[in-house]
């Protein structure tokens, strides 16, 4: 099982990146003009609270020392308190993870369901009308702003056809899925445009690969060559593509949560920016960055599991 040795070593390679993420999020808050204690506590803080925060964050000491205070607090699971919600930032983020996670997963599933048939159609008809149509549609799709597309879907699918709820999240599982349908379709339509373009290229390359030629030489019909050999092999690059586009996906989530009033991490970030709740901004930015690193790790894992020849 030495192929999977990287499961143990790769996290060590992530350490410099995680260190960098912590430095950047630390610097972000320190760059805000004004007394850092007031930045952390808000303008209406009491003198005792300010004295406490000064001791906890080492605000009277040099910046390097402050960074180590920051790391120590982080190791103890303390990322500060939200000025707006009056609770610990980590716990606040914890309550917002589920809607965002559901939205991201639903978007990925939907976009793969859209992108794979589109790319297959284009690749199998390379240069013909179907291929041109897919290329034009996906080129157009990349330019669709998610916040606007979401509103257009609301007009057509919620208002005209009354198929889905307009906004919010819901309580039961079925209710949540109904609420997440339009937002995830919004993200999936833009994400699938990106996926289709790349997937089409990798399918076309795979169509002229030795695997496909060998299958054709054995007299296998073109349809079976495609679905048995070309399609499964082009899924491996798709996993990586999704990992590469995780930033795009999270960005889309942030915007779409605001459009549909979904109480997730993205909406939390936007509201925190407006209310100058800097500890929350810092916490959400760090959480999203760590999630990105984690997704890349999982993508490596999936790639190795899917293709025995790949060693990391």
């Amino acid at each position, binding site marked *: 099982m030495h192929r999977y040795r990287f499961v143990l070593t790769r996290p060590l390679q992530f350490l410099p990146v995680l260190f960098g993420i912590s430095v950047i999020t630390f610097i972000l808050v320190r760059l805000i003009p004004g007394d850092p204690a007031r930045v952390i506590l808000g303008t209406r803080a009491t003198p005792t609270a300010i004295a406490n925060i000064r001791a906890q964050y080492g605000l009277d000491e040099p910046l390097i020392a402050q960074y180590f205070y920051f790391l120590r607090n982080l190791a103890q699971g303390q990322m500060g308190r939200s000025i707006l919600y009056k609770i610990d930032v980590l716990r606040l983020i914890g309550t917002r993870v589920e809607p965002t996670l559901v939205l991201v997963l639903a978007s990925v599933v939907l976009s793969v369901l859209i992108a794979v048939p589109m790319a297959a159609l284009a690749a199998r008809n390379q240069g013909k009308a179907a291929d041109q149509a897919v290329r034009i549609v996906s*080129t157009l799709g990349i330019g669709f702003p998610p916040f606007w597309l979401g509103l257009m879907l609301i007009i057509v699918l919620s208002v005209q056809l009354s198929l889905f709820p307009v906004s919010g999240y819901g309580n039961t599982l079925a209710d949540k899925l109904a609420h997440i349908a339009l937002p995830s379709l919004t993200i999936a339509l833009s994400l699938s445009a990106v996926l289709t373009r790349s997937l089409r290229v990798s399918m076309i390359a795979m169509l002229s690969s030795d695997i496909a030629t060998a299958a054709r030489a054995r007299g296998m019909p073109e349809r079976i060559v495609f679905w048995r050999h070309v399609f499964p092999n082009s899924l491996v690059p798709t996993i990586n593509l999704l990992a590469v586009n995780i930033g795009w996906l999270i960005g889309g989530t942030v915007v779409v949560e605001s459009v549909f009033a979904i109480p997730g991490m993205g909406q939390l970030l936007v509201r*925190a920016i407006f209310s100058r709740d800097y500890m929350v901004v810092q916490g959400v930015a760090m959480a999203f960055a760590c999630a990105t690193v984690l997704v890349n790790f999982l993508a490596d894992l999936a790639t190795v599991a899917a293709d025995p020849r790949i060693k990391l």
Partner: protein
Amino acid sequence: MSVLARPAFTPGWSKAFGTNGALAAGSAILALFVLAALFAPLIAPYDPIAQDAAARLAAPSLLHPFGTDNFGRDILSRVIWGTRIDLQMAFFGVVFPFLIGTVVGTVAGFFGGVVDALLMRLIDIILAFPFLVLMLSIIAILGPGLSSFYIAMALVGWVSYARLVRAQILVLKTQDYAVAATSLGFGRLRIMFRHLLPNAIAGSVVFVMSDAVLVLLNGAAISYLGLGVQPPVAEWGVMVAEGQPFVTTAWWVTLFPGLSIVALAFGFSLLGDGLGQRLGVAE
């Protein structure tokens, strides 16, 4: 990098565009928007911020082809004036990262060693953050506005260009003409920017176009969220946000600014594809 596929001689129109439909269509779309931006005061039928209480939320008609918003402002005029802001956003949002990234990538690739290793780690860290999240965090510190958007773009956007250029420079610096330039005693700056960079830049030039799409979408999204261009300035993302409360009754307020974003983004994408074909760079 193949330039062999290019025909030896083609006159006039086809000399510029050849059979490159994407390049021609993309240039045409972009030219249309540039003209609209330049001649906005002449083309727009109304003042983009003039309110008309008598014509609130009027549906599209001959008088107001795109209808009016809740202040009675003419949507068509606002879309035309918005072209100025959104084109400007795409332009500056790409130019600063392009310049910074190109210089950083050239220096990192040319010198290698510690400089290169440090810069590459910095790029890894910046790329660990989702683009929009880091942009929003920086804007949170600087405060909302267009200048904050440009600063955040410059701080975050250069990494893609740096990676592209660095990869090219790494290959080019071992080629004969680079070695020849070194043995002729040319200075490092001259070799980097006169000999290597012009040959390394094609990929970045093509990437500029797909980057312009992302910058346009992000700029409009940030303005939609209320953190970029501020009302009453006519900007397409702001217009969509302003139309959202009326989306069920007055669809035209949000439809047309959004369509403009789609059209401009399509123009940039086509131009990128066309340039890619023309310069023999595949993304």
